[in-house]
């Protein structure tokens, strides 16, 4: 935490580890817009494998169209262009980057690329549902991750849906992944009430609330630093069943399920 305070008190220097998904696009485009420029970006890209969260638009965008597809959340005054591939954003802004030919964040090629980074802090946005393993976490780097749930209450997966179902709000927590996998502190937390209806939770709401939280975290002077309480009391959620997912979305869109 002390190191972290030091990092925050000086000019924020960081790198990024990204795959071309909506979350990465929302992060990168909004960080640049707000003047937070990564010194180096590692892009995970493999043409033979498709990300689980790949959207139809990703297929269109690979044809390098000039069209835009702006995804926005007016409540939070934030947006991103879904059709802009992250490599296009990188090149457009003359950023330093390297591409590793894999989608596996725990592979040796990624580990080697991370080793070469000079920054200690890395903003992480990997493929949906993957977990950083010991090997990559032991590189003496700190991975900044935005978890789409208010910790310690909403641990685990697809917490955005559970939070909407239980509390009608969305929370995000900025945490650090390092060699002590589950013990890093919660650096920053934010909770949002979303009034807009008919939003795609997976492809719009999730990336945008996370991006909003990341930007606020970079801008704030009030860091939490509270421990990530691993108390037995808090529930750990698993990937939401489609029925509960539907109930969560319907509750948000209609105010109630009936």
């Amino acid at each position, binding site marked *: 935490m002390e190191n972290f305070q030091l990092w925050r008190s000086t000019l924020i220097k960081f790198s990024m580890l990204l795959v071309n998904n909506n979350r990465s696009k929302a992060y990168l485009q909004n960080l640049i817009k707000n003047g937070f420029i990564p010194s180096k970006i590692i892009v995970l890209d493999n043409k033979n494998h498709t990300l*689980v*969260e790949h959207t139809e638009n990703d297929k269109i965008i690979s044809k390098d169209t000039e069209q835009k597809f702006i995804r926005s959340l007016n409540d939070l005054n934030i947006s991103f262009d879904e059709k802009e591939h992250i490599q296009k954003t990188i090149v457009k802004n003359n950023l330093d980057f390297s591409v590793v030919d894999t989608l596996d964040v725990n592979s040796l090629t990624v580990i080697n690329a991370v080793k070469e980074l000079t920054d200690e802090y890395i903003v992480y946005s990997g493929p*949906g*549902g993957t977990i950083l393993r010991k090997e990559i976490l032991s590189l003496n780097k700190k991975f900044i991750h935005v978890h789409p749930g208010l910790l310690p*209450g*909403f641990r685990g997966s697809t917490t955005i849906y*559970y939070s909407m*179902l*239980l509390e009608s709000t969305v929370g995000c927590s900025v945490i650090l992944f390092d060699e002590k996998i589950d013990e890093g502190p919660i650096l920053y937390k934010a909770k949002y009430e979303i009034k807009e209806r008919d939003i*795609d*939770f*997976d492809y719009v709401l999730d990336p945008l609330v996370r991006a909003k939280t990341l930007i606020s975290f970079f801008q704030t002077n009030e860091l939490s630093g509270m421990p990530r309480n691993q108390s*037995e*009391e*808090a*529930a*750990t*959620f*698993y*990937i*939401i*069943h*489609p*029925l*509960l*997912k*539907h*109930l969560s*979305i*319907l509750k948000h869109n209609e105010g109630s*399920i*009936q």
Partner: protein
Amino acid sequence: MIIWLIGMSASGKTTIGRRLFNKLSSSQRKWVFLDGDTFRNVLGEDLGHSYEDRRKNSYRISRFCEFLHSQGVQVLACVLSIFHEHQKYNRENISEYKEVYLDTTFENLVKRDNKGLYKKALKGEIKDVVGIDIKFPPPYAPDIVIDNNKENPDYDEMIQKILDTIGLSTESDYSYTSKNLLEFPQKYQYSKYEGKSFLNIYKKDRITTLDTFTKRLAKHNRNGNNPTNFKISPYFQDDTFYLKEFLVFLYHSEVEEIKKHTGTVNTLIKRFEVGKKLYLTYDAKEIRKSSREFEELINYPLFSLILQRYYKSEKNQQKLVYLNAILKVNDIISSVKYDYILYDEIYHSIDALNGELSIMEEYID
């Protein structure tokens, strides 16, 4: 689903049946088109057209449809069915059985009779013709009666009417149980939002499965079978944790006792969520699988029932963790419903599905 399209010779069975089949085949399910005459031919033409031979053939078709249905195959059968007993058999033994009756006047049948069957029979040249010397009793309880007497019928409208009535038109299938989930585990990642109608699609899946189980249980009852009284036996032995024994123990325990095992049950949920399977044995220390055997089918309804008890006794967020697992376990049960054969498996599966539906009533109107 098994559909019997019933009508006399020249009533339009094949014409309408083919069109209906084309429409059905565009859905996700695999359909088989079964024509009464083709069926006789496939079996080697060992039966004639006498009343008794027709009875045998009709029963064969019923049994064959039941067999295909038990394998998860959908059948559209175009049949000249004159035996109410076999229509009744279908209703009692096939959970998704629908009957469509093509009602055509005798005058129109004769007019459309390309084979000249009726004319020959009327002249006495041939025997055993239904409608002439064999009586045709219209089906006693068809799901839909189609009046096929118009000169130029609107077949599209007719097909749509049939699909609407038998409940196959507007709703797509509940895709989460269409494959055997023990063979092809469902990850549920980025599942598609399908709108409000999904709630009905889900419900229909559960009701269909319950119907299958109820019919199967009734058969067991008719045969005098009874449920087993599970014996409680130790669930730990040396370093091994026996899942079924543990679930049976919890099944018979009071709430207070159940609560003492919350940690173990939560670990079992964690393990289940990773591989979407329940294993025969786990190591006693960390409850990690120590067996590759996951096809002890009774464990799935028992686990679902135990989780339902936890769900009811829990007040905070953990409630949804239990409900989420219940839905996934019950998806597995529904996806392998034709493998549930033993009395206990079926009996507890009915309880597990009914319990889930009653919980879901808290959330869905």
